[in-house]
């Protein structure tokens, strides 16, 4: 298992390095860190001085090497938008994002496994048809529109309908006022963003789980287990589900990137100061230093999740560890 994991880690290092190099060049080519200075009509000498200070006059490969050296030491430069150290900005944003991702994955995995298994075991039952219909709608919903409609019909309108003091669900930030920690306030803030983030993912994972479960239930060892007289519940959970989870893990790993992309929409709509909103604001402001660090940190996160999926894979399927 360890050597298997070690090989995977070694394999991903060059991918991350190359990706960060490409992104570095790409972002630098798109956004000029001296743009602000230029637009303030500074004379060409001071622009050149600034360029020299930032090292922009050197070859791009040297710049990248320099950036990489500083990056691994935690010196991620200074934001051109807020004049803050980028490291601190991203650390603060990551905390919000990690919360959303954590609850998002927890919710989508739980719901899709339950729905998928139920639909497979009770194939063509009325509830299975209902889930199928909902999944089709969920897959076709633009997530950002779902978020807006959820605010309208789950937060704003119920106040008018039921003459409430305040909305049941909040849609700004993750806490109100001085409230911190895990409490009712947190849940009321979390509900809509997590739902917006996961609606498409739940739809797609539950369909996938249903197909995987159907596939497994038709296999010979399930028939053998049934014939032996293994209790139905045990056949479904221990023999069936455990094997049907393996393909789901693959899909989960592949969808992590989409989940991070979904954060850009969710955090923008719900004013959560996480990574998605940081990307949105930095891109609008053309903040190259933040954007480079953002893409690399996001890539590292996605790679880490893929490794986690590999570990899960090994746990679920012992054959993988041997390979």
């Amino acid at each position: 298992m360890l050597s298997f994991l070690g090989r995977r880690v070694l394999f991903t290092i060059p991918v991350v390095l190359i990706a960060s190099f490409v992104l570095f060049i790409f972002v630098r080519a798109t956004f000029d860190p001296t743009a602000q200075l230029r637009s303030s009509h500074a004379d060409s000498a001071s622009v050149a001085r600034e360029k020299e200070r930032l090292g922009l006059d050197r070859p791009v490969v040297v710049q990248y090497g320099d950036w990489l050296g500083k990056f691994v030491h935690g010196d991620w430069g200074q934001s051109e938008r807020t004049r803050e150290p980028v490291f601190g900005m991203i650390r603060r944003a990551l905390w919000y994002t990690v919360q959303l991702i954590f609850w998002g994955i927890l919710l989508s995995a739980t719901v899709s496994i339950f729905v998928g298994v139920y639909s497979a075991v009770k194939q063509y039952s009325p509830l299975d048809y209902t889930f199928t219909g909902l999944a089709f709608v969920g897959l076709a919903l633009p997530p950002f529109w779902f978020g807006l409609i959820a605010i309208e019909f789950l937060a704003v309108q119920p106040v008018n309908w039921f003459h409430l003091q305040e909305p049941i669900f909040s849609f700004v930030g993750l806490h109100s006022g001085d409230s911190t920690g895990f409490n009712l306030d947190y849940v009321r803030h979390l509900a809509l963003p997590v739902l917006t983030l996961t609606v498409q993912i739940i739809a797609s994972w539950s369909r996938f789980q249903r197909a995987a479960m159907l596939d497994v239930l038709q296999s010979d060892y399930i028939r053998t287990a049934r014939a032996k007289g293994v209790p139905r519940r045990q056949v479904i959970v221990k023999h069936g589900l455990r094997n049907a989870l393996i393909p789901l893990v693959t899909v989960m790993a592949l969808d992590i990137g989409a989940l991070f992309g979904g954060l850009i929409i969710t955090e923008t709509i719900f004013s959560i100061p996480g990574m998605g909103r940081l990307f949105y604001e930095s891109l609008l402001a053309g903040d190259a230093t933040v954007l480079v660090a953002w893409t690399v940190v996001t890539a590292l996160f996605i790679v880490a999740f893929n490794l986690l999926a590999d570990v899960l894979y090994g746990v679920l399927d012992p054959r993988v560890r041997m390979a």
Partner: protein
Amino acid sequence: MIPEEEIRRTDPDLSRRMDTGGIIGTGLGAQAGVELGLEPGGGSGGGSGTGPVARSQWQLFRRRFLRHRMALISLVVLALLIVGCFGATFFAPYSKNGQDLLLGPVSPNGTHWFGTDELGRDQLSRLLYAGQLSIEIGITVALLSTILGTAMGAIAGYFGRTTDQALMRFTDLFLIVPDIAILALALAYFGQANITIILVLAGIFWMGIARVMRGQVLSLKEKEFVEAARAAGASPLRIITRHILPNTIGTIMVDATLAVAAAIITESTLSFLGFGVQPPNTSWGKMLSDAEGYVGTSKAYLLYFPGFAILLTVLAVNFVGDGLRDAFDPQSGRG
């Protein structure tokens, strides 16, 4: 061979199809249906795995597609949407940008079915005109990325080695950064003209299709008929275009259809964030972006219709894709 009772017991859907199938309506029973390749579930045990052996592949395909009720309804819905949007000059009750400042924003009513915005522009008319761009982007992106993805995937899968490694490692790079982020950055770099949006979206979308194609080609190129073609002296180009690609037509068409849906949603997301379609152009996503601030106000109706239009279009496209998948490969269709 699975006995008929067994099929009927495990799969009511299939059982219904057996009963209503035109070919077997003559009383020959399900046996004949299987033999004719209607449902290869049990019949094609020793077959080549490329689908039913049939008198006419196209006839069977059409028959199976026509039996997929939702796909048929969706096809009609899509046709209506396309005719409505691209015929907006005839159907739209008002002109594209016609303003009525004295009128201002009014809720949906008899004269303005979908209401008007703060400039008094009729939302139904705008919706139809905006749909032109949304649908156009969806279809063009799907076409371009399917052509490019199929070509790249086929080349990588067929020639293997370096070409294959290059393709896979290149697409790996794009798997570790969210699509939306790459697309937003790329649009910031290349600009946001309509044609640029199409090219940039296609520039990302082809990779998924290429990976799927590569897998298909990898397994197909080991088949006997490819070996036979090679032995007969066929060139790689001929083998790929004449022998391999026709066998992947099902995958290609399903992928292309689903790419239309994905492109429409992605474009609307980018436009919503402000990185996509720019004024004076408008798409459904752009309309939603303009209306974002009206959540919870009396003008919230501006949000409903463009979003509903996207939902309806994507839903219909997905159903057609589903119908195509069932029609091309009945075994996979019951997922």
